[in-house]
């Protein structure tokens, strides 16, 4: 799964720690999501979508199978 979390975070001018605090997760979680090493749970994906004000499918894109 690919995602645009890093770009969207950059647009807001937030650091990984800022985003982690807003989502109530650790900074390591944000880093793992951004580097594609960890796919977030559905509740966390919805939280991200709500925070960025975008639909989930515009943030998370299915990768090549």
């Amino acid at each position, binding site marked *: 799964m690919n995602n645009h979390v890093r770009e969207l975070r950059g647009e807001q001018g937030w*650091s990984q*720690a800022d985003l*982690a605090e807003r989502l*109530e*997760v*650790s*900074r*390591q*979680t944000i*880093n*793992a999501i951004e580097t594609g*090493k*960890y796919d*977030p*749970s559905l509740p*966390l994906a919805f939280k991200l979508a709500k925070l960025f004000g975008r639909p989930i499918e515009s943030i998370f894109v299915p990768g090549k199978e």
Partner: protein
Amino acid sequence: MNGLRGYMHVVRDFILREYARNTLEATERAEDARRRMTPAEIITLIVYLTALIVSHLWLPHLQSSAPRVLVALLPLPPIVLIVTLSVRRVLALDELQRRIELVALSVVAVSTWLCCLTCWLLQHAGMSMPSLSLGFLAMMALYGVARRWAQRHYA
């Protein structure tokens, strides 16, 4: 004048960069501290080890079965408490940290099962096995290694 302004910019950038770095390091230190064992868990672990030693030393001096059973099971309550405290700590973590803990626990569970099976098979072949009382310490060490490995995987 321009030289002075450039110098001020360099100083300002340096201060901001250092502030950001310190803030990030402080956050990471706080996250690390949350993941580590709590004081209650450490105290319970010390109680467990004490109970294990007391039980081991006291047991040969007891003859009747009821006190022997009680003394033999002396280390059990602290272990139950450690497990309860650990579960509570893991449930309070975020989803990635929880996954890391579960990966580490899975590694420990499979390794323990394999070790038990190996010991049982070797015992069946008539070989003497080392005391299982060290098993818990070995599990703790393996858990630490497995957690570190899982953390590096997601880093």
